[in-house]
């Protein structure tokens, strides 16, 4: 059902955890549906210096969270904003069709985290 890459990221998730002094936090999903993700970012000189995730959900939810943190790390804010659901799924060698909508939320979480960062910065 899952690609080897999904299983690999599920088994060994990258960048798992929380950033205590994050510059932006994005939360997406709904535990009722079985997926809840929190993405934390640390920004320096317009670049995503560090990114971590916490996820409650299925293997697809965990793997997409892990993948989006890998894709985002080191990218500029502008580039990171462009990472979409399809990019995440493609990098994972695809997702089961049924999981494309419900569990592939990680890129939305990243966007929320960036928006949170931008709105906080705007207030400073």
């Amino acid at each position, binding site marked *: 059902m899952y690609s080897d890459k999904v299983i690999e990221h599920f088994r060994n998730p990258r960048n798992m955890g929380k950033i205590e002094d994050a510059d932006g936090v994005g*939360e997406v999903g709904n535990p009722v549906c*079985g997926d809840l993700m929190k993405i934390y970012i640390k920004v320096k000189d317009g670049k995503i210096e560090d990114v971590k995730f916490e996820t409650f959900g*299925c293997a697809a939810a965990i793997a997409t969270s892990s993948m989006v943190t890998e894709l985002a790390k080191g990218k500029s804010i502008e580039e990171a904003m462009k990472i979409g659901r399809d990019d995440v799924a493609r990098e994972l060698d695809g997702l089961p069709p049924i999981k494309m909508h419900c569990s592939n939320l990680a890129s939305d979480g990243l966007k929320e985290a960036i928006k949170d960062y931008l709105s906080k910065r705007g207030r400073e």
Partner: protein
Amino acid sequence: MRVYLDHAATTPVDEKVLEEMLPYFTKKYGNASSLHSFGREARDAIERSRERVAELIGAESEEIIFTAGGTESDNIAIKGIAFRKGKGHIITSQIEHPAVMATCQHLEKKGFDVTYLPVDKYGMVSPEDVENAIRDDTILITIMHANNEIGTVEPIEEIAKIARENEIVFHTDAVQSVGKIPVNVKRIGMDMLSISAHKIYGPKGVGALYIKKGTKIEAIIHGGGHEKGLRPSTENVPGIVGLGKACELAEKRMEEDMKRMQRLRDKLIKSVLEIEESYLNGHPEKRLPNNAHFRFAAVEGESLILSLDDKGIAGSTGSACSSKKLKPSHVLMAIGLNEVQAHGSLRLTLGRENTEEEIDYVIEVLPPILEKLRAMSPLWKR
């Protein structure tokens, strides 16, 4: 280590069952309807199996028909009554296997009325509720004997008594209970009862339906008149032989097997419940001796099943994320769990071949898996 703890899903075919089946593929391959010796040896084998099935559940052999499995038995029984009566009211529960539930839902679309009785937090149907649901036009009560997910054993003896007093046909899906706990159709007072072979170390694709003498149902499949015209089709002789042998073995081994399984199951439950925020689903005592069903806070079931699978352990979950329809288990909803709670469910069902060493291995491996999943879960308290 590979540990199979999904015996409620299916069981391996017992070597002795396979051995008895094999000649019926290549040597004794006759059509049981044929008059020649090839046909007769197949016919004899079928009738011997019929006796063995009847023996296990305390029925007469002429009260057993062979089917293609539990789902088909349920369909023949439920639709058989419904079609014979033409209209009316059916009483069932909210925790039935899809073989019963979807059949009742279909009959609802065809104009029958169906009452889906609620259950308590342990998954128990109340006989009083059954009695109160009875109407003048009630034609059938169908309540499962033991639940396939949480293992709760229903009070079918009391329900059977109520059905009898009200002269309503009573059917039970006993796919999970037969071979695990004593089932005697005469003592319970059943009218119809469904059995499946592959849950009791027999082959897949074969089952049986007990129909009490005098219970009249209409055929839902039409053809050459096999199995009293209720399940026409050239008999699956090897499968039927396998079911017969599986029943014979179950009868011989049940008491000892179940005592052993229950001891291991209780050890598993006791250890797992020591894990923080872990809960047992289903009835604490009135449950199948091989069933353990847990719920863990802040963990999603599919992730849990795949993590256990990585360690060689096979279990199952009622989480929506693992279902084809992305809907949480209707059984877990019926016992009052919410969607989030249902996500964290794990069913482990033991079988004959499980050893103490295997259970100890599960007890050792499960806590760090939960720890890892909880460490990455935003729902887990810090």
